């Protein structure tokens, strides 16, 4: 709402100044990220328990994951975190074209991540390396090898969903940037999305060794 008092147009009425608004958004975002950590925390806990009960299965099953695909995706996501950071930096400097460029790159890298994940998943579905009652693969020794794939699909699936959600938000940012909504004075949404995107990246950095490199 535009204010008659010469306040910037992006300042909401219940904040006294821009600084207070920005600080509030930041704190809110950090709290949101904590809730995300706890959401995944439950699954990490399940991982720890089932792995400690079935160390052999986790070892025997993990060799069926594609380390090349996993490594590729790790590189892709880390790169996307860099481009996201560059997008924020560009907006801080008021460079809108550069911001757009970096945001689009981030979006494309996220898409690459999901495409690679798609090929990994479809390969597993083809072989029957699946959770619970869908498990039909015969090549892993030990009782209940499907447990590994239950945990694998749950965790990477939830993570993949977060990548997808991030892509939605980044698309929205691209549209908003094109419409000139952000400036060197006001880029809070870009910055907050960046925080979220780094967390998504960070979670993958834990998932990658826990599943692909447990041997």
């Amino acid at each position, binding site marked *: 709402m535009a204010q008659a008092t010469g306040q910037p147009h992006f300042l909401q009425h*219940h904040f006294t100044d821009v600084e207070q608004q920005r600080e509030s958004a930041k704190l809110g975002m950090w709290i949101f990220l904590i809730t995300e950590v706890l*959401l995944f925390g439950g699954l990490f806990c399940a991982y720890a328990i089932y792995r400690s009960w079935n160390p052999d299965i986790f070892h025997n099953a993990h060799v069926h994951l594609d380390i090349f695909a996993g490594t590729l995706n790790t590189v892709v996501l880390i790169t996307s975190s860099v481009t996201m950071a560059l997008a924020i930096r560009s907006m801080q400097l008021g460079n809108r074209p550069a911001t757009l460029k970096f945001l689009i790159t981030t979006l494309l890298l996220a898409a690459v991540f999901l495409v690679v994940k798609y090929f990994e998943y479809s390969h597993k579905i083809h072989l029957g390396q699946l959770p619970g*009652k869908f498990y039909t693969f015969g090549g892993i020794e030990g009782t209940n090898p499907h447990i590994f794939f239950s945990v694998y699909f749950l965790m990477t699936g939830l993570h993949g969903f977060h990548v997808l959600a991030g892509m939605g938000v980044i698309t929205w940012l691209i549209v908003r940037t094109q419409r000139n909504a952000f400036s060197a004075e006001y880029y809070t949404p870009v910055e907050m999305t960046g925080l979220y995107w780094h967390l998504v990246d960070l979670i993958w950095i834990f998932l990658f060794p826990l599943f692909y490199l447990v041997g």
Partner: protein
Amino acid sequence: MNELPTKSYLNDPKGLKSWLLTLDHKRIGLLYLFSIMAAFALGGIFAMLIRLELLSPGKDFMEADTYNQLFTLHGAIMIFLFIIPSIPAILGNFALPLMIGAKDVAFPRLNLASWYIYILGSAFAVYSMVAGAADTGWTFYTPYSTETTTSVISMTLGAFILGFSSIFTGLNFIVTIHKLRSPGMSWFKMPLFVWGLYATAIIQVLATPVLGITLLLLIIERVAGIGIFDPAMGGDPVLYQHFFWFYSHPAVYIMILPGMGIISELISVFSNKKIFGYKAIAFSSLGIAFVSFLVWGHHMFVSGQSELAAMIFSFLTFFVGIPSGIKVFNWVTTMYRGSISLKTPMLYALSFLFLFTIGGLTGIFLGALSVDVHLHDTYFIVAHFHYVMMGGTVMAFLGGVHYWWPKIWGRMYSELWARISVALIFVGFNVTFFSQFILGSQGMPRRYYNYLDQYQPLHAFSTYGSWILGLGFVIMAVYLVHSLFKGRVAGSNPWGALTFEWTTASPPPHENFATIPETTHGPYDFDKIVPKRTLTED
């Protein structure tokens, strides 16, 4: 005499659309008030039906399966739709920004979104009722919850969605309290209700995501049979219980902490005396929030967790008694030599003190391992839980509703009828639930449809109590609605309180204050300031 302001948040702007799209925290509080009260009425009717069926052994008027569904719905609705959101989402939303001298919460749009998410989650819960209601109990324990043919998914999905609503409220409050306090209001000048909401919000934010993932896993388990909680497939049903109680024990503090905050306000204002031990009360809220995360295993003493774990959980559970005791002693000391006025809100506060103390002490019994093995899954648990939740939280909630009622609407309810109602509720409550302590100690198991003849007199007694209780609530509904039209105009400060919300008009204007108030004194400095009351005795 007092007059209502011509323009207030209630009538400016006008129209249904302006309410449904409102970003005003006061209006959102009212949207929550109406929807949560509807849930409370529904859960209450279910409770009355359960008690009616238990009037005598065997079938009275419903089948055992229906009975199982009813106690599940009663529990799930009262927990997820009523008591968790009740105080923060209604009274917190209305009063928090006013009490810290802010124009609104930090994220008004998120606040409105939380209400719509609440409605969506409730819609799933209601759908579950008509589509073959769940009969698992509100805890949704596996393996039964993955096997029963009733509609577990829509109910758990409803609870999952309601979790987001709770998280958004908590997140909003933390940021609001950190960043939007008016100039001069330092942390230790904040009203204690704000401290209570703050501690609550921390738990909401930290615990609710774990419930989210738990219910998500349960839904996936039920839909896809991934075996994560199924021992036949290498999964672990006890893991479900750990996950569930990691949320649901702290959740009982989501329910009680804001209530304790209200009690601090009421005791000080109606004793007309500075609160005793302000910092002790404030920090004990944070202490309770902290300890709450370390005691979940006391729900699983007989679920097959290790003896060592059970001993540690039992030991830690006793610690909860310390900050709770600190609060109770400080409240009692505040009243000592105060000039106590027994208005309706104070009557609720006194009821709280009495009932919560019983509820808390019986909690210590249950935290003791050997005693718990005997009392586990009996009516003793049911009675303990209702003394804490209804005797504690609901009494505090009702006290808060009556305390802020004149601020919300600008009008007073009938003090006489309110006192009759509080008396009926207090007596009815004790008749209903004290008998259940005795039933439980004699071995009556909870959730049973049928029982031995020897339990009949106490069951009947308990059912009679539920009628008194129900009558009290019906009277309350009538005089509260009546007050909206015919109540005396209250003026800005009917109780003579010192916190900010009483410095602005009743009902307040859309922007809360004509000018942002400045902190010149503490919230309970009755020793230094004589507040001007706008309403005199009849």
